[in-house]
C-alpha cells in the first residue's frame, strides 16, 4: 500500500494528465517522485525553490490567470512562514489553490521545533474561506483531493507520515459514522482514527470520523450525538481545533465535552513520532483510559 506522499505524486500526476489547468509548484521536495511529470509537462510543474512567500504569491497569479495551482512543501514553511500570502493572496482574493503539506504536528519529531507544526490547523482556521482536509490514509487522500481540488476556494491538505490501517468511505465535506454506541460520541480527526478505534474496540461508544474540518459537517455530528451530548474529541494537532465547530453545531444543547490532542507547548525533546505520542498521551492505551474515565 502506498504511503500518503507516494499517493500524492500519483494522484496529482493523474489529475495533471486529465486537467490541463493544474500546475504544481514544489518547494524543493518531492521532486524525484514527480520525475515523469517533469518530462511530460515541463510547462506545468516547477521545482520552484525555497521561497515559500513568493511561491504562494506566484501561485495566486497563476490562479487568477485560470490555472489551478498545487503547492507542496513542509507544513511549517507552507503555513506559518507564508501565512500572510495564504490569507491575502488566496483567502481575501478568494482564489482556488491547493496547499499540500507534509510534516504536520511532529511527523519530523527528531528534527526539532523548526520542523514541527501542530499549529497549522488553528492558524488556517483563521482564514475564513480556507477549506481544511486531513486524510487518514493514502486512498482517502486520493478520493478527497479529486473531489475538492476544483473548488473555487483555497484548500489545505495535510499529509501524514503515519496512516490509519483501514480506509473509510470518505467524502469531501462529510463526516462518516464508523460505529455507533450509547455511552458517548468520540470524534476522531484524520490519522487519530486508527488510534481511537484501537482504544475503543470493545467500548459501547459512537465514533464519528472527520477528514474535512472546513466545511464542517454539523448535520452528521448531530445525527451521531443524538440525545446523549457527551463528546470526546481526538485531534492530531493542537488540542481544541474544532471545539467551536462542535459546540456551534449542537447548540442550544448543553454538552459535556473533553478534548484530546497535542498540548499547547513547544516540544523540546526529539526521538520518534511514536515516542512523542507516548509522552503526550496520544497512544491507544492512554486514550482508552481517558475515554473510560469520561464515560464512567
Amino acid at each position: 500500500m502506498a504511503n500518503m506522499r507516494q499517493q500524492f505524486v500519483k494522484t496529482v500526476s493523474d489529475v495533471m494528465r486529465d486537467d490541463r489547468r493544474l500546475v504544481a509548484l514544489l518547494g524543493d521536495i518531492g521532486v524525484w517522485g514527480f520525475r515523469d511529470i517533469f518530462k511530460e509537462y515541463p510547462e506545468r510543474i516547477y521545482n520552484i525553490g525555497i521561497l515559500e512567500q513568493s511561491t504562494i504569491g506566484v501561485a495566486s497569479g497563476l490562479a487568477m490567470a485560470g490555472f489551478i495551482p498545487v503547492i507542496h512543501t513542509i507544513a511549517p514553511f507552507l503555513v506559518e512562514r507564508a501565512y500572510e500570502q495564504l490569507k491575502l493572496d488566496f483567502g481575501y482574493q478568494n482564489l482556488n489553490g491547493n496547499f499540500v503539506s507534509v510534516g504536520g504536528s511532529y511527523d519530523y519529531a527528531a528534527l526539532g521545533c523548526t520542523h514541527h507544526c501542530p499549529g497549522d490547523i488553528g492558524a488556517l482556521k483563521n482564514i475564513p474561506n480556507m477549506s481544511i482536509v486531513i486524510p487518514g490514509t493514502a486512498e482517502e487522500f486520493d478520493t478527497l483531493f479529486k473531489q475538492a481540488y476544483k473548488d473555487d476556494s483555497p484548500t489545505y491538505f495535510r499529509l501524514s507520515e503515519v496512516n490509519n490501517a483501514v480506509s473509510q468511505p470518505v467524502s469531501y465535506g462529510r463526516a462518516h459514522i464508523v460505529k455507533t454506541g450509547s455511552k458517548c460520541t468520540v470524534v476522531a480527526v484524520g490519522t487519530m482514527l486508527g488510534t481511537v478505534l484501537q482504544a475503543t474496540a470493545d467500548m459501547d461508544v459512537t465514533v464519528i470520523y472527520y477528514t474535512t474540518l472546513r466545511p464542517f459537517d454539523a448535520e452528521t455530528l448531530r445525527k451521531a450525538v443524538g440525545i446523549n451530548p457527551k463528546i470526546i474529541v481526538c485531534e492530531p494537532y493542537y488540542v481544541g481545533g474544532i471545539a467551536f465547530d462542535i459546540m456551534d453545531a449542537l447548540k442550544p444543547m448543553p454538552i459535556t465535552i473533553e478534548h484530546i490532542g497535542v498540548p499547547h507547548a513547544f516540544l523540546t525533546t526529539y526521538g520518534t513520532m511514536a515516542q512523542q505520542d507516548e509522552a503526550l498521551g496520544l497512544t491507544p492505551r492512554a486514550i482508552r483510559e481517558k475515554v473510560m474515565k469520561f464515560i464512567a
Partner: protein
Amino acid sequence: MKHLRKRILQSSFNAQEGHVPSALSILDIVWVLYDKILNIDAIKAKDTNRDRFVLSKGQASLGLYVVLAEKGFFPGEHVEQYCSQESYLGGHPDKNQVPGVEASTGSLGHGFPIAVGFALASKINKSPARIFCLIGDGECNEGTIWESAMLAHHHHLNNLCCIVDYNHSTDRALVVGDLAQKFRSFGWEAVTVNGHNQQQLEEVLRKHPIHSNRPFAIIAETIKGYGVPSMENNPAWHHRAPTADELKQLMNEIESYG
C-alpha cells in the same frame, strides 16, 4: 495632470484618509501606462490576452483610481467617495470590487510575486500579454521582491516589467542604493528614468520586452508628493489628509505648478 492631482487631494479631503504623496509620486507612470502602453481598456477589461498592471504598492491607490476613472473603468465622481462605507474604492485596491484592478494589494511585497505568476501564466499560455508591476523603494526592503526577482530571471520572464517608484522614502530607514545595479545583478535588464517625464517614460516603456529572455526593470526617479510643492518630500504628509484651509492652499499650489 492637474485635474487628476486635484481629484486625489479632494478625495483624500472628503475621506480624511489616504496616502496622497505616494499617489502623486506614481501618477505620471500610471497615466503613461494606461494612456500609451497597456493593451487594455474598460470595454475589454477581462480579455484573456490583455496586458496586466499590478500596483504592488497598494497604498498609492488614489493614483490608480483617478487614472482608471479617467479611462472609463468607473465614474470619476466615485473616486471622491473614496474610503466611505458605501464605496468600493478602499485605501488599498481590491480586485474583486474595483473594475480594472488586477490584484488586491496593500501589504507590501505581495503584488510583485503575483505579477510574476501572471507572467509565468502568460508564458505557459503562449500569450502575447505583457505584465507591468509598480513597486516602491520602501517595498524593496521586502524579501519577496528579491525572491521573485530571482524567479523571474530563472524562468526567463521577459514579458515582465517591474517599475520602481524610487521616491527615496526608504532612505530614512533602510537605504536600498543603486536599484538598477541590484536588478542587473539579479539577471534583469535595467534602466533609470525620470519618473515624471512622461515622454521619457513612454519611450522606455515602449521598449518592453527589451530582451529575448530577461525581465526588465525601470527605475523611475520620482518625488513623493510631486506637483504639490509643500507636500514634496515632506514626510509629515505620508499618511495625512488636508484640513479645509490646507486643501484650498494645496489646490492653489497645484494650479500654479509648472
